[in-house]
Structure formats: structure tokens, C-alpha cells
């Protein structure tokens, strides 16, 4: 099998600076962060106008479950970062293993989320039952949509693992974005008073 090494892998030495992945993905990260920040602002403003109702709704959430969700996604970001490092050094087998670990952790997050939603629905809190829960379900659901897209992105990463380091880094950038969106959502839904 004749292949030429990805130039970026060969020439990268200590000290050369490069933008991780396609700069285009960073455009997406900035843009989507802006959109999410706008959603968060709408939520926070509503919160200040209906303090007691929001506090009451929030008290139905389990903070430790939110912490667990966050730790799971943070760990998936960790395995994602390790995957990129392995791939960069040509260690494709460990990279693939880390990619699958990342997907597995993402799946754990998804299961935890569904468990949490089912629990809340059984307690009588639904999308339409109160303003707090309207925001709760909206933010967690739109985040989950991003997570599901993340699985597709991970698929692309595994597909292109040995072919293009840039695509690996691009996909990793997307995954980390899903993670840091959750970091913000957790703080805003579970902790903010």
C-alpha cells in the first residue's frame, strides 16, 4: 500500500504553531457559541423576572446527577484529546480505542439524560408544565441534538483517522464544543440561583 504521509504529521516539531483542525470548524464554534449564549441570556433574563417559580422548578433537579453528567462529558473530552495526540504520532490503534471510548462516554451521557428526563416526567414536570422546565427541556434537548450530531462526527473521525490529521482535529474540536456547551448549561440550570 503506497501512501504518502500527511505532511503536517511529518513536519510538526516542537514549537510550530498550527490551528487545530480546519479553521472553518472554529468559525462554527464561535457562531454556535454566540447562538447558545443568546439562548442562555433569554433564560437568565426570564429567571430574574420569575425568581420564585424558577427556584421551585430547579429544586426538582438532582445536582449530583448534573455533576455526574458533566464528569462523563469531561472524561469524553479527555479521551478525545488523547485520541488526537495518538493519531498525530501515528499510533492509530490507541487512537481508535480512545475514539470509541469517547463515543461510549457520550452514550453514557445520553442514557443518563434520558433517565433524568423520565424521572422528571414521572414527577409531573414536562416541557409545558412550567417556565423553568420549558427552558430545562429546551436547553438539554438542543444540547442532546448536538451530541447526536457528535456521534456522526465521531464516525467521520474514525473513518478518516489514518488519512487526515486535520479532519481528526476538526472532529475533535466539534466534540469539545459539545462538552463545553454542557459545562455552561449545567452551571446555568443546576447551580445558578
Amino acid at each position, binding site marked *: 500500500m503506497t*501512501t*504518502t504521509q*500527511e*505532511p*503536517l504529521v511529518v513536519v510538526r516539531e516542537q514549537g510550530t504553531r498550527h490551528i487545530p483542525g*480546519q*479553521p*472553518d*470548524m472554529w*468559525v*462554527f464554534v464561535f*457562531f*454556535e457559541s454566540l*447562538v447558545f449564549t*443568546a*439562548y442562555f441570556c*433569554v*433564560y437568565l433574563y*426570564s429567571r430574574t423576572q420569575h425568581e420564585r417559580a424558577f427556584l421551585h422548578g430547579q429544586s426538582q433537579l438532582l445536582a449530583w446527577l448534573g455533576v455526574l453528567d458533566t464528569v462523563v462529558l469531561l472524561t469524553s473530552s479527555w479521551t478525545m484529546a488523547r485520541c488526537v495526540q495518538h493519531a498525530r504520532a501515528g499510533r492509530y490503534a490507541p487512537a481508535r480505542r480512545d475514539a470509541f471510548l469517547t463515543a461510549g462516554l457520550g452514550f453514557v451521557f445520553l442514557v443518563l439524560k434520558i433517565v433524568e428526563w423520565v424521572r422528571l416526567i414521572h414527577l409531573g414536570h414536562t*416541557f*409545558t408544565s412550567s*417556565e423553568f422546565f*420549558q*427552558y430545562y427541556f*429546551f436547553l438539554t434537548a*438542543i444540547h442532546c*441534538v*448536538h451530541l447526536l*450530531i457528535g456521534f456522526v462526527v465521531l464516525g467521520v473521525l474514525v473513518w*478518516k483517522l489514518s*488519512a*487526515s490529521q*486535520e*479532519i481528526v482535529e476538526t472532529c475533535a474540536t466539534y466534540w469539545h464544543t459539545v462538552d463545553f456547551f454542557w459545562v455552561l448549561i449545567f452551571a446555568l440550570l443546576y447551580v445558578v440561583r
Partner: protein
Amino acid sequence: MMRPAILDDPKRELWLAWYATVGFYSLYTVVFFIITRTQPPGKPWYDPSQVVGWFAGRHDGLLIGFALIFVLGGLSATSLALITYSIRRMSVSRAFAYSYLILYAVAAVPGFLFICTAMTVGAMRPERSPALLQWLYDLAFLSFSGTMGVFLIGSLIWMTAILLDKNHVFPKWFGYLNLCNALTEVVVAPSWIFHEGALAWNGAIAWWINVVVFALYTGAFIYLLRSMILREDFGTGPLPGLDSKVWRTIVPVEATV
């Protein structure tokens, strides 16, 4: 008399379509936001008597504005045609272009023409029963905002085409922006459920933020279509000109999929 250069320019039809696109979106903005004032949308929680008042306050604007749309709305076809042309110019299967064309052409009926028709019908006879006017009002706004599924798939098709494309017709960041646009369609879906609040059809999230995203997206593709026409070489290979480092993507040596 010298023959004007534009008559022999092989790109003249493309430019015609592009200027028509700009014309269409300008018309759309002026009609919806200024003449008919149907955007920002009316409030979903209005009772029938308030709806009567809403129609009364916009009577002439609705009839004139939407009459303009009925006459000139066909210009929207140029926008669609140019985008389909851009997808055809890509290295991906033509199926992408045709799917996009069909989806958006079909979507224009509920997503664009229903509101024009329903509002015109409502304005035409102000003496209609308030309940009927409220029915037309709901139909107009729900169909305009709520029929998003078609646009969602369309955006995803364009996104996939751009990301797979090896001819560099569009920069990859616009492919990702298509994802952002597709997601706004998801965000507007709850407007079928809520009569008030951020997720209602006039809500801070479902309308205001969405419109900003849509406006930026539309501005981006109008600009990029112009850039495509400037770079067009009527070949089938990579389009020249987008080779600044920011846009370049590394094509894997083993391009076998």
C-alpha cells in the same frame, strides 16, 4: 455602436440570476417587515377580537404587499436555481442538487405562499367572523414558522454536499453554517405547542434569535454565490481562486471512499 461586453459574457445568465436573488430577498424584507408588517409576527395569544384589530391595522399593507409578492414572488426561483447550480458544480452526485431543488421548491408552498394567501384572504373581507379571522391568522403564522422540516433536510443536503465537495465551490465554514441554519429549524418546532414565551412563534428564541441566524446565513450565501460566479470557469474540476490558507482543506491522498 460598440457591442456591450455584458452581451457576450458567458456568465451573464448567472449574474442575472444573482441580481434577481438580491432583488427577491430585498422585496421579501420590504414586504414582510415594512409594508405588511407580518414580521415580527403577531402575538399567538391574541383572542379573536384582538386578531380583528391586528388585521384592521394592516388592511392596506397586507393587500398591497402580498399583491407584490404574488406578482414578483417567482423571483425566488432564481435563488433556488443558482444554489442548485452551485451544487451541480460540485464534485458530488447530481442527486444532491436535484433533492435540494425539489425540497425547497415544495417548501415554498407552505413556508412562504400560505401566509401570503391566508393574510390576503383575511384582509380582503374585514367583516368576516372573528373566529374565522383568528383561524386564518393561526394558519398564516404556523405554516410560515412551523413547516420547517423541509428546510431542515434541505440545509443538511447542502451541508453534506459542501463538506464532500472536492471542487472547493464553497468554503467549509459555510457547510457548517448550514448546520446552524438546520438547527434553527429544530428550535422553531416548539412554536406549535406554545402560545407565549420564548418558544412561541414570536418568541425571543423561536423568532428573534432564529431570524438573526437566518439573516446572517442568507447574507453569507448571497455573498458566496457572487464569489462562485466570479470564479466560475465552466469546467468540472476544482474552482480556482479559493486558495488562501484559511479555506484550504487537505484532500487525503487516498481519496477512495
